[in-house]
């Protein structure tokens, strides 16, 4: 466990060194480095028998493009600060350029192809969720799962070792669902809640801020059931993760504890 933790900390430091540009940080929200995705990458590469420098280069470039995509999530119509909006776009483009440069300089053309395919898929699923293109909840969950995991899935499949399975994607889906619920509770808005409402309201748009108590309760109920189901799937298939280690296991354990099944909460409160 210590070794994985050390590798993780070391890689996190390297990603930060590239991402935390002094000028950009003065004007944009501090870029979020997705530590769970980094831990998954470190856990995957730990199983590979390749030179350390090569593995670090793969991990670093994958995290740079992930951070680029995450940074571009911070753009909205509502940004009051023009300079911040401009530099947030450019920061994402800059990280994206760095990812390509790292792989190009080390002549990893096939990895560039692999990750580009991942970026393409991520954005296809992002658009589908953002524009509420999902017909049903199953389809919506698959889109969220894919937008969260397509990059890492492409990365793992590159090594052709059956490193990837749906279980890892479910963990990333669960984490996203938790984050969206937190956002909805705090801000009464979430793109995923909006997409769910669009589906359960027969594709008629209703502003989340205008929901009646009954509609709100129904929405939360549906959402919690989705969380329950995903949590159960994760717990049932924990041992199926090919690159599971103690550090990752404890992190997954922490994540699943963040949500209590709907029925249990209801009974406790009742």
């Amino acid at each position, binding site marked *: 466990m210590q070794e994985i933790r050390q590798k993780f900390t070391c890689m996190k430091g390297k990603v930060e060194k590239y991402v935390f540009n002094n*000028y*950009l940080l003065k004007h944009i929200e501090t870029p979020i480095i997705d530590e769970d995705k980094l831990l998954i990458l470190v856990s995957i590469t730990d199983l590979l028998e390749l030179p350390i420098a090569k593995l670090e280069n793969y991990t670093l470039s994958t995290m740079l493009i992930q951070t*680029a*995509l995450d940074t*571009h*999530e911070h*753009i*909205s*119509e509502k940004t009051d600060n*023009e*300079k911040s*909006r*401009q*530099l947030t*776009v*450019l920061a*994402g*483009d*800059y990280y*994206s*350029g*760095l990812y*390509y*440069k790292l*792989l*190009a*300089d080390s*002549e990893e*053309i*096939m990895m*560039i*192809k692999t990750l*580009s*395919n991942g*970026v*393409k898929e*991520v*954005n*296809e699923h*992002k*658009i*589908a969720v*953002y*524009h509420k*293109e999902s017909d049903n909840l199953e389809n919506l969950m698959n889109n969220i799962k894919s937008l969260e995991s397509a990059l890492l899935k492409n990365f793992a499949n590159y090594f052709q070792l059956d490193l990837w399975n749906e279980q890892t994607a479910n963990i990333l889906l669960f984490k996203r669902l938790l984050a969206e619920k937190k956002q909805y509770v705090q801000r009464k808005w979430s793109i995923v809640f909006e997409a769910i409402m669009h589906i359960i309201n027969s594709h008629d748009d209703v502003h989340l801020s205008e929901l009646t108590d009954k509609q709100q309760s129904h929405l939360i109920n549906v959402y919690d059931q989705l969380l329950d189901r995903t949590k159960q799937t994760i717990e049932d298939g924990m041992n199926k993760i090919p690159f599971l280690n103690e550090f990752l296991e404890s992190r997954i354990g922490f994540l699943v504890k963040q949500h209590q099944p709907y029925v249990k909460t209801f009974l406790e409160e009742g």
Partner: protein
Amino acid sequence: MKLKMMYSFLNSDINIIEKELGETIQARSLLLKQASMHTLQAGGKRIRPVFVLLAGKYGDYDINVMKNVAVALELIHMASLVHDDVIDDADLRRGQPTVKAKWDSQTAMYTGDFVFALALKLMTNIKNPEAHKILANTMVEVTVGEIQQIKDKYRFNQNLRDYLRRIKRKTALLIAASCQLGAIAANVEESVHKKLYLFGYFVGMSYQIIDDILDFTGTEKELGKPAGGDLLQGNITAPALFAMENKEIKKAIETVHENMTAAEIAKIITLIKQSGAIAKSVALSDQYLDKALRILDELPDNKAKKALRDIAKFIGRRKF
């Protein structure tokens, strides 16, 4: 002569590139495809693919290889335009609504990232690592240039060197890379592809200086926006820098801020135009154009050389 006439011998290959651009943009989501095609269909000179193909004529030209570079570079250019419209909060480009205006900023961000990924994926059909090193370095430099442009806004104590470094990154490097990558894809020898890089660089510098001049001399109808927009946004370009050699005009320029009225900025534009700064800027552009033409003299004679010469002269002396 019209620009397209200068490379009419490439017409069938340009058509292949155009078709390939459309075919490359395939997406699961209809909306994503529409947003991506929207920018593509807005047109544009396709000058980067043209440079790629012309440079390829110095080596083993195979359109099936060349098209990967030509399409990838045009897609990268397109993706950057989609993001630039979010940066500039622009509603119109080439008279058409931008992706940001037709949908919204978030859609524009996803579309730009998607198109950029398609471009890199396509580019990986080129196996020469040198090509990727050049393109990756160019992309980082272009973004650093854009960040620098924001840093330099309303910074009136900058000098000509700051400006030239900025336009090098903003415009010249991608045109230089287009020429060099086209040559590398056609296995052109190093001494020649390096000269083609320099040619593209000098043409790009000349092109951007002319663009910056037109922002002062063009009419609102020609520009699609009021003249002097660059200065109003705090972008200090060659005409303003030359005009600031006069202390009185410098004082006036230093008063520019984004909330200035149209009448106030018009007065300053007139001062700049009367100062002789436009002629000095044209001379600067001509210096780069001459350098570009001199580089061409060192290259072997062929059809491409004549086309490159004509295009360089056209974009270095264009009125719009």
